[in-house]
């Protein structure tokens, strides 16, 4: 994926202001930054939901502005907010989104069961999502994004507000997906999460990328990598804490 000089404004607010980066195949790329940094807007543009004011994005050789449908056929999106039909079962949710992703009936069901197994929820396949815990809903949210074998997966803060057990489960799944060759764009404001998972990270603030490299290299810029954190890097670059 190649992002070139992306701009997006909402009235007076420059949500995304000249963002450029590229993600290599099979890489986990982290987009970090505090709330309001422009991460979600960038993902919404990349996932064809929002139109950019200017700039271009190419995913798998397809331009997002001219071949949006082709782009949608190779991406999977796990939005920050839960996007589920709570009255339906986990399996029904997954099969439905599988059909939306272009899978045939039996294939959608088989893939749904595989993904539920991956998330450790196969025994709850027929349970109503409304009765699931927050962590289980997060895992279903992620499992749905995997329907249709996407080549590029957008994960927008997939671990927000969940228990450590579910969070670890999601980390393992993400690393497992990478091993299978999937490319992942991961946004988070938890720096330790990015440090643990991402091959490269871009730190965003005020709609711009202020630095981009491997977590190790970024940390090396300000001190011994084993002693400093990405949060320290952010503090050094912006003079602010991530939680300010």
């Amino acid at each position, binding site marked *: 994926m190649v992002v070139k000089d992306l701009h997006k404004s909402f009235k007076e607010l420059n949500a995304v202001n000249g963002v450029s980066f590229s993600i290599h195949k099979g890489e986990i790329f982290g987009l970090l930054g505090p709330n309001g940094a422009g991460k979600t807007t960038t993902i*919404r543009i990349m*996932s*064809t*939901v*929002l139109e950019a004011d200017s700039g271009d994005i190419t995913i798998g050789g397809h331009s997002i502005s001219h071949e949006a*449908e082709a782009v*949608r*056929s190779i*991406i999977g*999106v796990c*939005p920050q*907010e*839960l*996007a*589920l*039909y*709570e*009255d*339906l079962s986990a399996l*029904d949710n997954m099969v*439905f*989104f599988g*059909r*939306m*992703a*272009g899978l045939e009936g039996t294939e959608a069901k088989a893939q749904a069961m595989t993904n539920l197994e991956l998330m450790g929820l196969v025994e709850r396949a027929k349970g*109503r999502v409304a009765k699931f815990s927050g962590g289980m809903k997060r895992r279903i949210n992620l499992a*749905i994004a995997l329907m*249709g074998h996407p080549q590029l997966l957008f994960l927008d803060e997939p671990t927000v507000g969940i228990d450590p057990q579910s969070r670890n489960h999601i980390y393992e799944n993400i690393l497992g997906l990478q091993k299978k060759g999937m490319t992942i764009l991961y946004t988070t404001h938890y720096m330790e999460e990015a440090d643990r998972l991402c091959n490269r990270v871009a730190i965003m603030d005020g709609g711009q990328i202020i630095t981009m490299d491997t977590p190790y290299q970024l940390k090396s810029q300000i001190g011994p990598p084993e002693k400093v954190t990405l949060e320290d890097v952010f503090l050094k670059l912006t003079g602010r804490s991530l939680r300010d």
Partner: protein
Amino acid sequence: MKRALFITLNEVRMYLQDKADLAFGLLLPIITFALMYGAFGGQTMFKATAPVVNEDGGTYSAQLIEQLDKVSGIKVELLKASEADIKLERSDLLLVLFIPSGFSETLKSGGKAELVFKQRGNGGQEGQILSSIIRGVVEDMNQGFQVRHQVESNLQGKGIPENSIEVTVQNLLDKEHQQPAVGVTEEVVGGSPDFISLYLPGIITMYVLFSLTMSARTIVEERRRGTLERLLTTRLNTGELFIGKFLSTVARGFVQTLILLVLSYAVLRIFTPISFLASVVIALVFVAAAAALGMIIASIARSEEAANWIAVVFTMFMVMMGGTFFQVSEGSVLATIGKISLNTYANEALRTVITEGGSLGDTLQPLAVMAGVVIVGLVVSRLIFKAVPGSK
């Protein structure tokens, strides 16, 4: 198109999962039918209470009240003058018959007596019917008096006792009533011309407008769940999304309307099999047109409250201007404004079939208008959704 059908199936599945929503959706037409049947069913004859103030208290006023009470469907309620005035003032009653004091004495002396109708406005529909019935009873009494006076004046001075003349004349009048010179026979042609067949089209069209509200909410419900954005990152395009939502609303609205029609067919027996099928087709086209209009609201509304309010305004306008419960006179201002109400065309089509015994072929024009609304509604809603910033 396949994905549009999955959207429809998903929507229907969620509807079936929500037991409260399902129960409400299926019970509503049954309750509507029960209310309609309770209000109009079986009441094919006019029934009313005739409020009477008898300030006379004489023989002839008692006779008038007795005659009135004998009329089928009429029950006389005697009131005091002050009581009647208050009820008229409050519009509890719209018409009261006042028998003034001296009424009987005037008649006995051969003079001309007067009855008084006190009424609010035109007395209302029931008042006007009552007034006609009372006039009929009075006309009968008048004829009796005329005959008696005629006979008495002819037999005056011939030594026949007055009592004997009275009895003989009364017997002749009774005989005349039993075997009138001019009789009237009722012949029922087609469906019975009762209140149900007059009001059923209006009730169906008002009912179908629930589809408008249902479809107006479909997109904001997806947005509230967060699933709208997720759907738009799949291979589903906005056209498929809108058609899927439209079809699910049509399915739900049509099932509800069908329940109402089937109950009307089975219980009220106002349909022939052909007119029933024609009504089903009209209802289906109308449900589709209402759902398509609802999709335009869905493409504009940003919250469920907004969707509901806009749908309510649309519905109120269409019910009021579309002649749902009263027929709008041709050429009136209301009729001109009503041309933009979907109900006008649905009512016209349903009345043609149910009330006037017409065929589906007679309703092609209103059906074509409604089908046009379906196409325009779907195209416009999709265009608005794509064009308005922040729709997604």
